[in-house]
């Protein structure tokens, strides 16, 4: 019988710890598939965030570094400068990339570092128990915005991808979404594109991935996907930004 689906070489055989319906497992696999297809597993160095994906390096099968919360792009800047021939990417959540690490994010982008960023936006802090994130939607309830996000109190959802797209040092920004098989396929293309850009020395590339967090959205996995489509994509429209 022909084998049509197998584990990527860039994935380890460790079972993932993520909640049922979480998007991280899919996003990890997309990264691994892209690395495999580009044939660069042995030339890849990943930088994992602090957040739910903190042990992403356990699931990938290539060299990886941990970074302090928010500092992934500073760490990646240095790794890429030391090894300009390697594929260096960061994998970061919304709190990591767009709150505590906003400074590192904007300046790495503005320097035009030849890096790829996989930015997982699930509109909430997952690992710490579902607190308000920079990308939390107006009205969305979290453990630190118990009556829902209010613009008077918390400001607006931060559209970091649009901000980064305005910087001349940034080459490529695309927002994708894991709400459907079609969305996942588009996401895969975007991740691969971001890596390919780096291999072609084109500069800073970022893929924002709208990703479900059923646990802290208080929804079933299926309802969470629907919520991405019906609510989240209204605030964060998918498609090529730059």
């Amino acid at each position, binding site marked *: 019988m022909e084998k049509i689906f197998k584990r990527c070489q860039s994935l380890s055989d460790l079972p993932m710890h993520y909640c049922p319906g979480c998007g991280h497992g899919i996003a990890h696999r997309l990264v691994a598939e892209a690395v495999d297809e580009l044939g660069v*597993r*042995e*030339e*890849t*160095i990943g*930088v994992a965030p602090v957040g739910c994906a*903190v*042990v992403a*390096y356990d699931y*990938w*099968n*290539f*060299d*990886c*570094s*941990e*970074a*302090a919360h928010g*500092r992934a792009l*500073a*760490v*990646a*800047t*240095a*790794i890429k*400068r*030391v*090894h300009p021939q*390697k594929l260096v990417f960061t994998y970061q959540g919304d709190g990591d990339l767009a709150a505590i690490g906003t*400074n*590192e994010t*904007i*300046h790495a982008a503005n320097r035009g570092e030849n890096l790829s960023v996989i930015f997982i936006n699930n509109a909430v802090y997952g690992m710490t128990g579902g607190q308000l994130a920079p990308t939390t939607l107006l009205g969305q309830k979290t453990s630190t915005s118990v009556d829902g996000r209010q613009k008077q109190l918390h400001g607006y959802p931060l559209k970091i991808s649009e901000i980064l797209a305005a910087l001349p040092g940034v080459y490529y920004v695309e927002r994708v979404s894991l709400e459907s098989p079609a969305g996942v396929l588009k996401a895969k293309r975007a991740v691969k594109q971001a890596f390919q850009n780096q291999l072609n020395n084109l500069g800073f590339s970022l893929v924002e991935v709208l990703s479900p967090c059923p646990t802290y959205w208080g929804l079933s996995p299926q309802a969470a996907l629907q919520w991405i489509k019906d609510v989240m994509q209204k605030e964060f429209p998918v498609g090529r930004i730059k």
Partner: protein
Amino acid sequence: MKILLSGNEAIAQGALAAGCDFYAGYPITPQNELIAYMAKHMGAGTKRSPGPSRIFVQAESELAAISMVYGAAAAGARAMTSSSSPGISLMQEGISYLAGARLPAVIVNIMRGGPGLGNIAPSQADYFQATRGGGHGDYHLIVLAPASVQEAYDLTQTAFDLADKYRIPVMILGDGILGQMMEPMQLSVQKIKTAPVKKWALTGCRGRKPNIIKSFFMREGGLEQANLKLQQSYESIKQAQIRFEGLFLSDAEIVVVAYGTMARIAKGAINRLRGAGKKIGLLRPIGLWPFPQKPFQSKARRLKYLVVEMSYGQMLEDVRLAVEGRHPVEFLGRSGGGVPSEEEIIGRLQRML
């Protein structure tokens, strides 16, 4: 041939001589000459820097600078950053991660007045922060405290070697006077050193299993094991890496204990008193962690110590721990830009005699 260099420039020159190939920093007085010197001499492929290509990055903050050093060290480079007190406080996050991930790096702190924004005057008030680890967790840095421009150059080279040997961050602890002062010094003509092969470094996993650089150990007992390994490493450092200078110790009735710039000022005072026949000695810790305890285990019956610092008494605690109550320990210190003068030290010693 001797050249006239400032302490800041000498540290930079020492780093270049040691084969430092990655520097990231953020401007802060009084160490700006250091970052400027690195910017001028690290740039790859310029006429100014023949030899291996090196990387210089001006970071967006000290937080980013130390994380860049972390990334470069993880990638196998000989990495360094420099700053001054408030900037070093910001770097504590990354320093703790360097220690936890067992990454070699050199961190320079040209201390200024604190707390808070303080001022830019020389100070030694970051001793606790430097020698106790500084950030969160059970860890230490090797801390080296040069007292002259020449020693700043020499110890910076030592720092890179120790960092690689023990996979540990090493701090060069100076102050505004040492950083700013110019003195004649000799450049050693030794060949540029290259870092040893680092099998653990991130280089892409061709022909081997993936390497992971991390300080996170969630599995039960995992962190305790990792921390015990750190402690073992610290024990071997304590055995092998004790550095101090002793002057007139054999017949001294009072031993002045001081480090860095304060030690050279104390030396001036001691030489003047020796000229007048007074039996004063000097004990200058060169390594602050590990702290040289043995030289304090004197059995002399009549012996007093005077600790002199540009702080209100930080190394004082280590001296008291080392003396273990056998002899009286007195203290003279100023802070916030005040520097005890030779005259003040002489006055105090005369009262103690």
